[in-house]
């Protein structure tokens, strides 16, 4: 298993290196050892919280994706397919367009978080039958709700002013520029427990992937495990959406990439998908704030542009697709 160790080291160290690099690189390079006042301020109060938020969001999305593909037994599952993001976007865009400010700069975050939770709960209710959550029901309920909320979102956007439309678009494509230290504790409070639950129930997740009867014979209650994992995913996704809007593709792509590197044992897949997601979002954000500086691009666009081709390459190369 020497190879495995090397891979593990690689998967852990790459995101850490990326994180470090995302601090010193940007529109202009900053050497942390000879930084003047302005550079130090940029480093500590602008870049550091931003990179941490990127890391957190990416981790939440990566881990959610890995868990969801497992509990839904579907390689196409990602946190957004459940429609959680469209509920969050709808709530946030309503807030942006109505100019809601009742909680100051937290308003839109709180709105999107509640939107995500409400949507998640609705998907859960729709997916619930005969004492438990059923994968196909969850998936279809998610897709159905997602269409409904997207339609409402489009409706809102088509009757809004051009200015409101632009603000809404910027938010929907993901925006990390407003990351502040003060918002990180709230993100941590939801993302870390989510990842922790997923890690603790990773064995059960492995069993669920093999089928409900199999899980049952191993002593897991499939419905109970699925419910716990679903709640964990809901919390992580809602937290990530409220931290920085919708960042596409990480939840779908990263688990597949990680699976092709370390295999599909959830005990490894979940933590490494989290790390990989964090690393990818960090680098996507670095690119989005640097290439056209001082103009910033939405990070969600960059993740999809660098992510999709690699995903397609993997797809062509692999003979068997599994979850």
């Amino acid at each position: 298993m020497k190879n495995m160790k090397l891979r593990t080291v690689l998967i852990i160290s790459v995101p850490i290196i990326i994180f470090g690099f995302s601090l010193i690189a940007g529109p202009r390079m900053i050497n942390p050892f000879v930084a003047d006042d302005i550079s130090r301020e940029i480093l500590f109060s602008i870049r550091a919280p931003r990179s941490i938020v990127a890391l957190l969001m990416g981790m939440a999305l990566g881990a959610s994706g890995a868990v969801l593909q497992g509990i839904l037994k579907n390689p196409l599952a990602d946190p957004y397919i459940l429609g959680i993001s469209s509920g969050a976007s709808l709530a946030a865009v309503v807030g942006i367009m109505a100019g809601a400010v009742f909680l100051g700069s937290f308003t839109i975050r709180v709105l999107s978080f509640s939107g995500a939770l409400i949507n998640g709960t609705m998907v859960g209710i729709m997916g619930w039958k005969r004492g438990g959550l059923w994968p196909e029901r969850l998936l279809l309920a998610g897709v159905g709700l997602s269409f409904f909320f997207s339609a409402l979102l489009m409706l809102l956007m088509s009757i809004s002013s051009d200015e409101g439309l632009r603000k809404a678009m910027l938010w929907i494509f993901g925006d990390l520029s407003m990351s502040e230290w003060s918002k990180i504790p709230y993100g941590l409070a939801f993302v870390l427990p989510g990842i922790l639950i997923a890690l603790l129930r990773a064995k059960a997740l492995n069993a669920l992937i093999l089928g409900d009867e199999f899980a049952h014979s191993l002593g897991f209650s499939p419905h109970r495990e699925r419910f716990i994992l679903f709640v964990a995913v809901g919390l992580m996704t809602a937290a990530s959406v409220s931290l920085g809007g919708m960042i596409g593709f990480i939840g779908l792509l990263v688990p597949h990439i990680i699976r092709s590197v370390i295999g599909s044992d959830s005990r490894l897949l979940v933590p490494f998908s989290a790390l990989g997601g964090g690393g990818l979002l960090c680098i996507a954000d670095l690119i989005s704030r640097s290439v056209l500086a001082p103009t910033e691009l939405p990070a969600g666009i960059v993740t999809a542009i660098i992510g999709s081709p690699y995903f397609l390459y993997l797809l062509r190369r692999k003979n068997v697709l599994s979850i």
Partner: protein
Amino acid sequence: MTDLERTFCGVVKLIFLFFLFTIYFSLFTASYAVEPPKRIISLAPAATEMLFALGLGDRIVGVTNFCDYPEEARKKPKVGGMSNPSLEAVVSLKPDIVVLSVDGNPKEFEERLRSMKIRTYVFYSKRISELPKGIRDMGVALGAKEKAEALAADVEHRINKLRENKKTSLKKKVLFIIWPEPLMVAGPGSITDDALQMLGADNIAARTASTYPKYSIEEVIRRAPEIIFIGKGQNSMNEVSEGLLRRLKSTPAARNNKVFYVSDYLYRLGPRTLEGVEELEGYLRQ
């Protein structure tokens, strides 16, 4: 062919040509010798303001959903948005002329109207210096020549005055914020940037990729603006701007209390634009 036939052919050709000429001239003169239009539709908020300023307000029979100034404009029948007005609504109001603007309205819509034999007028000015000519042309096209001349002369006078004043130094580093979260600012090609240039101020977002770019906060700190303007007034922007201003507290503007909430007059090129420029000038002088 006999001579008679040849003469006959010649006459027919002549008559035909004569007809062509009459048709041509009648069309030509129809489009120029205008009688003032009685039913006007405006498809841009700036154009609506201009029409009211030219005293044509009572002839307006339709406006967009965004035409909110002056107050009377809100009461006019609506024909949809700027980028997606309803053709049906426009046609059913039987306008004599439809006024469009070159930035806000799709070109195809104007072509469609013309193909339906509806007269159009496109307000094409994009910069403050082009405003007087734009006003005069509009006055001619809509039959409000005197009012337009007076308004244009006033605008010209104010522009010249601003240009003279510019000699005294207003060369300060400025950032004009359109929206704080995410940070969107006035970039090149915006009327605001044009105004800052006219005043001789240095817009730190003058060289960016788009007109209203999403701007890097660390670059704001790095470029250290001496004055920060926030558009659209204190009431609507105060609370949403809090977070951003906290993060910009080390900039000279924030340290010296040079953060000003200003009007949104500069968001539209129209009769109120100069007021907006003068407002900025006032703050730049402080």
